[in-house]
């Protein structure tokens, strides 16, 4: 023992004392230390992925090419103008390799095809995360100040929305989300300013509450306030989670605040006391007037059938008072100047039929258990306070309650809100998308004093709205202006003069667009005057019949007088012409039989138009496009010719394929089509 110890000590002494040995040992330690850095490097995460990648590709058929493309080390995309330093390709080695498209193993999959080059935009502009980081954790998951985690795939469309403010074909979720923000009136309380300085506008127009007592009862208002979705699942009115007494006080205030409108009191002379002779007549008139184009009703299977432009009418009889209903249908704009409902020129008898039909649509359960005591002055005053607190006037016109400015927080940059500024609910994922969708889904869970109401949205709708909010980033403001693709500026076109007044009372622009303003349900009328013949238009306006047998939404019959339809026809024929050709440059008749015959052949063989159109209903079957049996009496020859040459130029977005016709072929087809003047058997030869 003793000897051993002395032996060890003496050798230690020898080392320390002998400078050569000492040098050797120190160098060995130094060397060891020096290898730590390369070893750390060798063992680093990204090198591991690069080694895995090389193994991954080695047995593939395209291994040689892939290996030739492979560059070891840190790979980065550097784009100073966009502030991009993205090293993601260091681990995502195969991201640019088209042949790795169907690889499921990450990080080696090729990026799916998109309209942009990775080298021009980098990765984080769309995916978020820290581009300069070299560890997965820092790159994907950091939530430190100024840093942001990777965006989950299901919200990726939000990134397109940073530059693209028009709806894109490839981003349905973003488009839907933006529509929701406008349609559900989110933007009535929250200002959203876009990078081009414009603000998002609401597309929902809740009714004024000025004469609400004429329209409905306090009981209905109470039940509606308590749960709008119980009355109509598609209602855009949110639920303010009111207590019974608060709902009672608000309903009392609204009734007390309402002023009578004399027009609402005058019911029709033959008021709907006597039931109509034919019980189905009301339903038929409802159908013939195509009310369902805009209003939905629940069918027996419980499905909603009809449009969403106007409110659901399943239980409208529970809601509206009979006298008001008659007055409304006679002149909707009198009650609500902003309404999109057209003024049908129904006769008193027709009005009574429809009113009786609609009043029968009831759900007595909706108000059955509502028993309200007459309200005291204090309760009414409290109701007014609540109306102000809840921001009702952000959406509705309410006498004596001014529209609040900036009622909710500004959301123009909500997509970049730092996580440190957010308060999460217990158990909630700490991420901005989770926060935003949580706020939409359960706004009051974040604090009882919050005023944000709860909207009746499906989880897909919440995801879409969240996507739209996430597109509102700081980056969308800081990206170079030339990258911004603005939405088409809003047009405020209104037709002028006497015809303009008529079109406003018929609300043509609720369904048709003219010069960039109006709805999308029916064809654009900007160039209608070049398209159709005068006589046809005049009789169509008086008595519209559909051009497309398969459409469920059709032009309603407004019961125009002769004078009215003449005014409209004159205006349309003059004001709505395309600048690209002269309407009467080709004749309506007088084409040679030989040319017509040539057109017929082209129609049936070379261009097979009968796959979508009917010329002879006995032979042809196609019904995607309009029926052409009387097209020669409907359209102008020049319109047909130019439309055939380039359909999308005259009707942007039409599905009629551009067949790249020669002038000769287009001419012959025009001659054949102009020969189709209606009546029996004028189409194809058998």
């Amino acid at each position, binding site marked *: 023992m003793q000897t051993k110890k002395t032996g060890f000590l003496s050798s230690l002494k020898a080392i320390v004392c002998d400078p050569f040995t000492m040098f050797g040992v120190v160098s060995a330690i130094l060397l060891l230390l020096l290898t730590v850095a390369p070893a750390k490097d060798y063992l680093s995460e990204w090198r591991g992925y690069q080694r895995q990648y090389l193994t991954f590709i080695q047995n593939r058929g395209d291994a040689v090419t892939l290996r030739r493309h492979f560059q070891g080390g840190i790979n980065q995309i550097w784009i100073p103008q966009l502030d991009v330093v993205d090293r993601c390709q260091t681990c995502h080695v195969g991201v640019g390799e088209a042949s790795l498209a169907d690889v499921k193993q990450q990080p080696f999959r090729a990026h*799916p095809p998109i309209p942009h080059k990775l080298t021009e935009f980098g990765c984080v502009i769309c995916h978020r995360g820290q581009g300069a980081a070299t560890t997965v954790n820092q790159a994907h998951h950091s939530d430190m100040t100024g840093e942001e985690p990777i965006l989950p795939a299901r919200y990726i469309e939000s990134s397109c929305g940073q530059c693209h403010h028009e709806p894109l074909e490839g981003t349905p979720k973003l488009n839907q989300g933006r529509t929701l923000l406008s349609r559900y009136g989110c933007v009535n309380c929250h200002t959203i300013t876009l990078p081009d300085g414009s603000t998002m506008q609401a597309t929902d127009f809740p009714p004024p509450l000025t004469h609400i007592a004429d329209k409905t009862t306090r009981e209905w208002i109470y039940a509606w306030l308590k749960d709008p979705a119980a009355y109509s699942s598609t209602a855009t009115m949110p639920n303010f989670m009111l207590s019974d007494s608060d709902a009672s006080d608000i309903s009392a205030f609204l009734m007390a605040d309402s002023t009578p409108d004399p027009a609402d009191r005058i019911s029709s002379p033959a008021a709907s006391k006597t039931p109509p002779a034919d019980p189905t007549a009301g339903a038929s008139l409802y159908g013939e007037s195509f009310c369902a184009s805009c209003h939905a009703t629940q069918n027996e299977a419980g499905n909603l059938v009809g449009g969403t432009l106007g409110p659901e009418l399943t239980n409208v009889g529970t809601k509206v008072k009979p006298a008001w209903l008659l007055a409304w249908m006679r002149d909707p704009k009198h009650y609500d100047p902003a309404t999109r409902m057209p003024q049908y020129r129904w006769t008193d008898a027709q009005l009574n039929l429809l009113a009786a039909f609609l009043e029968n649509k009831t759900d007595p359960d909706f108000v059955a258990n509502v028993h309200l005591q007459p309200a005291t002055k204090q309760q009414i005053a409290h109701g007014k306070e609540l109306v102000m607190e809840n921001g009702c006037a952000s959406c509705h016109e309410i006498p004596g309650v001014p529209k609040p400015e900036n009622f909710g927080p500004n959301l123009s940059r909500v997509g970049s809100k730092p996580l440190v500024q957010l308060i999460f609910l217990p158990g909630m994922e700490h991420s901005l998308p989770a926060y935003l969708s949580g706020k939409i889904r359960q706004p009051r869970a974040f604090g009882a004093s919050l005023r944000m109401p709860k909207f009746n949205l499906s989880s897909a709708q919440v995801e879409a709205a969240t996507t739209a909010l996430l597109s509102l980033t700081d980056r969308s403001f800081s990206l170079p202006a030339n990258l911004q693709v603005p939405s088409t500026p809003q047009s405020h076109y209104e037709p002028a003069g006497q015809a303009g007044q008529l079109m406003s009372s018929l609300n043509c622009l609720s369904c048709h667009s003219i010069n960039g303003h109006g709805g999308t349900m029916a064809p654009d009328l900007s160039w209608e005057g070049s398209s159709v013949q005068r006589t046809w238009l005049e009789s169509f306006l008086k008595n519209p019949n559909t051009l497309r047998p398969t459409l469920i939404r059709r032009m309603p019959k407004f019961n125009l007088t002769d004078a009215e339809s003449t005014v409209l026809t004159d205006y349309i024929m003059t004001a709505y012409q395309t600048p690209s050709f002269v309407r009467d440059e080709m004749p309506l008749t007088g084409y040679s039989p030989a040319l017509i015959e040539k057109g017929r052949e082209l129609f049936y063989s070379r261009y097979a138009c009968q796959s979508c159109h009917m010329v002879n209903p006995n032979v042809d079957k196609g019904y995607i496009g309009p029926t052409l049996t009387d097209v020669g009496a409907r359209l102008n020859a020049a319109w047909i010719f130019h439309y055939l040459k380039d359909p999308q130029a005259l009707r942007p977005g039409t599905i009629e394929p551009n067949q790249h016709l020669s002038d000769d072929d287009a001419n012959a087809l025009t001659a054949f089509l102009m020969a189709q003047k209606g009546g029996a058997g004028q189409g194809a030869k058998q």
Partner: protein
Amino acid sequence: MLALALCAGCKHPTSSAPALKPTASGTAIVLVGGDKQLGSPGSRLSQPLQFQVNDNLGNAVTGAEVEITGPKGVIFDPAQVLTDENGQATFKVRLGGISGRYELTASSRDAHGKPFSLTVAEFAAGYQEQVGYEVNEKYCSRCHDQDSTVTQVSNYDNLAVKPHSFSNGDVYNKITASDLATIITHGGPAINRSALMPPYGWTLNKAETQAVIAYIRLVSDPPYVAPGVVYAKH
């Protein structure tokens, strides 16, 4: 150790769900609905996926356990369930974060513990495939799909020569991408087919044509396999 830590970190609805006690068992799983939906990556499919467990007489079995599994990243709600009074098991499905075809397998066990299963496919459309879907909906589906909807009546029955559904892999997988591009661009006659198939080369741009081809490849059944690349087994 690391694996353990990782596992503890990730959510496994399967392992946390209380064990189900099947009260019955069947011999076959049949599909009720919800397959072949097109969704976007990471999103929940709009319709739930529904199966039915039958016994060997073809009668629905109540109380049989059905478990559903799929590739990494797919989230099921629930992941296992007992069949309801109609013998049906319903699963909400959230697709994984990458685009492409997802094969999901529902499985159960018979009275002897022998497993049986059914595999169905769902599709996650990337940007290009989504554009292709929109093009198809707008221009193509009325002729190529036999099914009518309320808003869109099928034109299929009216066509003298019948086109094929884009999901018909037996037909489409044999047509090369360049032939597809040719017939879409120049119409049926360009590859000696009927003129009832119109040319779209002056209506769609190149990107849209490629997009609709990508869509055709995505929804193809049997699945499309790109030619030329030999894949190694991993």
